[in-house]
């Protein structure tokens, strides 16, 4: 089925199960328990998980396969968001045309930028994409928002107003992004005992799209085209000497990953019909780089894991404050408790970026393959132990998360 081998099929199945059952998996704690703040199963965050998953999967097609490190992918995400909101403004709140336009415009935009940037490689490529991204940010933030020609609405961000044409908007269609009438915000809450699980329409739209995107990524990874990209990564010069022009391949990879970013941007706008320039800033590009590397560049599942990991910590880790910490370490003697809390305090709450930075550095230094490699090493280590006949293993082989 789907033209995949057994291993990829099980990978796809795992991703499908994880995404479809996410409302259950991410809400393991009863709603009124003390641990409820670690529940990540609310629609807003779940949507972000899958949207950034798409973004990272797309980025990985470029970076993981060809080794070209782009620091400008957020620009495509932003362009996607802007085009989607324009579609809402001009046509209707139906998300299908918005997402299609977002992908197309982001694809064209990345074709333009890729055509120029890919003339260079290595550091120059990174810096060129960085320059382009900052330029797009400046364009969106100030240049294209003057009264004569207001494309982006500058600092306020592009949004839908009452006097917009919306020529296809039906009389009784919802006044929010919807899929043929199904509002993206509609949520069904299932309560089982003390647990509550949210099933959000927007999340499932994103999840289905992400599975399609993930499937396409698998196909690209396993195709001759993917092999060619890997060859470019391992030795571009040799490819050139064999008489092959690598530029079309890298450009195609760049455009594909740009379209993934545009898709993510379009979905972001579909969940919340607003587009701001800050999405295009180069630190936002840095974030997707973090996700991909943290999860494991060049692997299929890695970027998805990385995106989930970072978004989870961004939203959950940053909520831990001193009170929570005191609650955790209450069993320690008083002086020690305060001491431990003081030590941990800089790393949680507002300081979670510090943890992220440190973790990222550790990953780059010790685990160039990211979390996936970490999981594999752990698995190999456990297996090795078992083979030696030491019966101490407890089967902890899941990826380090």
């Amino acid at each position: 089925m789907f033209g995949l081998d057994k291993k990829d099929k099980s990978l796809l199945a795992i991703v499908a199960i994880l995404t479809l059952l996410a409302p259950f998996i991410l809400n393991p704690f009863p709603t009124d328990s003390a641990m409820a703040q670690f529940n990540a199963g609310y629609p807003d965050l779940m949507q972000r998980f899958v949207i950034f998953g798409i973004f990272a999967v797309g980025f990985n097609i470029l970076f993981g396969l060809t080794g070209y490190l782009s620091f400008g992918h957020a620009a495509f995400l932003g362009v996607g968001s802007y085009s989607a909101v324009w579609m809402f403004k001009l046509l209707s709140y139906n998300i299908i045309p918005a997402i299609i336009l977002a992908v197309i415009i982001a694809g064209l935009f990345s074709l333009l930028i890729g055509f120029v940037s890919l003339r260079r490689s290595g550091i120059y490529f990174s810096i060129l994409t960085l320059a382009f991204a900052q330029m797009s940010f400046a364009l969106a933030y100030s240049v294209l928002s003057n009264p004569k020609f207001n494309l982006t609405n500058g600092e306020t961000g592009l949004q839908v107003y009452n006097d917009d044409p919306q020529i296809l908007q039906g009389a009784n269609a919802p006044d929010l992004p919807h899929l043929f009438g199904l509002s993206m915000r509609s949520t069904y809450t299932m309560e089982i005992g003390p647990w509550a699980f949210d099933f959000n329409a927007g999340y499932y739209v994103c999840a289905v799209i992400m599975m399609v995107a993930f499937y396409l990524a698998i196909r690209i990874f396993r195709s001759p085209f993917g092999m060619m990209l890997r060859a470019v990564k391992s030795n571009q010069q040799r490819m050139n000497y064999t008489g092959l022009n690598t530029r079309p391949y890298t450009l195609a990879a760049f455009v594909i990953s740009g379209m993934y970013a545009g898709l993510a941007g379009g979905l972001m706008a579909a969940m919340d019909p607003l587009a701001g320039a800050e999405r295009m800033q180069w630190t936002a590009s840095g974030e997707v780089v973090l996700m991909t590397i943290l999860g494991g560049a060049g692997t299929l599942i890695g970027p998805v894991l990385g995106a989930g990991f970072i978004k989870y910590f961004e939203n959950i880790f940053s909520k831990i404050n001193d009170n929570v910490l005191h609650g955790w370490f209450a069993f320690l003697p008083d002086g020690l408790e305060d001491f431990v809390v003081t030590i941990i305090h800089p790393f949680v709450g507002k300081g979670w970026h510090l943890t992220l930075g440190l973790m990222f550095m550790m990953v780059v230094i010790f685990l160039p393959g990211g979390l996936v490699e970490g999981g594999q090493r752990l698995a190999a280590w456990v297996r090795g132990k078992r083979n030696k006949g030491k019966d101490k293993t407890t089967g902890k082989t899941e990826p380090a998360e």
Partner: protein
Amino acid sequence: MDAILLQILNGLDKGSAYALIALGLTLIFGTLGVVNFAHGALFMIGAFCAVTLQRVLNLSFETIDETQKDFLGNPLKVKTPYVEAWFGPEAGAWIIDWAVPLALVIAIPIMLLVGYVMERGLIKHFYKRPHADQILVTFGLAIVMQEIVKYFFGANPIQTPPPDALNGVANVGMLIGMDIVYPVWRIVYFCFATLIIGGIFAFLQFTTFGMVVRAGMADRETVGLLGINIDRRFTIMFGIAAAVAGLAGVMYGPINPPNYHMGMDFLVLSFVVVVVGGMGSLPGAVLAGFLLGILESFASTTWATTTIPGINQIIIYLVAIIVLLTRPRGLMGRKGVMEE
């Protein structure tokens, strides 16, 4: 004519900052072949050296002055900074007033140390890894440095005023018979930058150490085979590059109040400057720094911004893209260096 000169002056101070950071970046790239994304963070740490010194100097103790009453009739509490108590009121006030220039003295050893530790502790292990890894690890380091500074100093910009004597404006046009009024501190900054840049070039050109470093930049292996410990010298150069960035940051405080992410804002532009100047070319970095600074200030004039709105925001990137496409090695880059 006045307006043109004013814009050139305006460009010079921003250009000085670009040139100093780009010079450090180029030194690191030219010697160690590493792209240092944490260089902006070093600039920021320099600026916060000044902030720290200013805070330390303002540490004070309270005494109760029985002769004066505050508006509630209680004895007035008077805060006296320790330095005023130690050195006498006048000298103490002078020291506090000159906190920013004095910070240069503490910034030099701090930045040399930071640079040394950074190179020995982290970057050393990345010479054999791909450029992408170097970019990533220094990017991570930049985030960590930023967050540490944010933890101690908060996220808001902190005012670091220049000394009173250098705060204000001067009519710099008098010498040439024109009327151009310009903030004194910016002129100081420009002179300072020129001094540092001149110092670095002189150091490389006229000392034995500098000669060895230049030889190492040209052919590291041969220099190493001659029995010279080139690694140690390159480490010191890394420290010097960090110090240059730090000093640029110290002096930039009065122009733009330091905040924890000021480095990132400068970093991107400094990369562009390095690329335009030519990767690995020191004069190129300086020249491009000043040129782009001046270009940016011309693009910020009302005439330019009304013709093309927002041109000042994108002009540098546009120039960089054009330069990279037409002359990939940059303005003064040597042929064959990083042209891939």
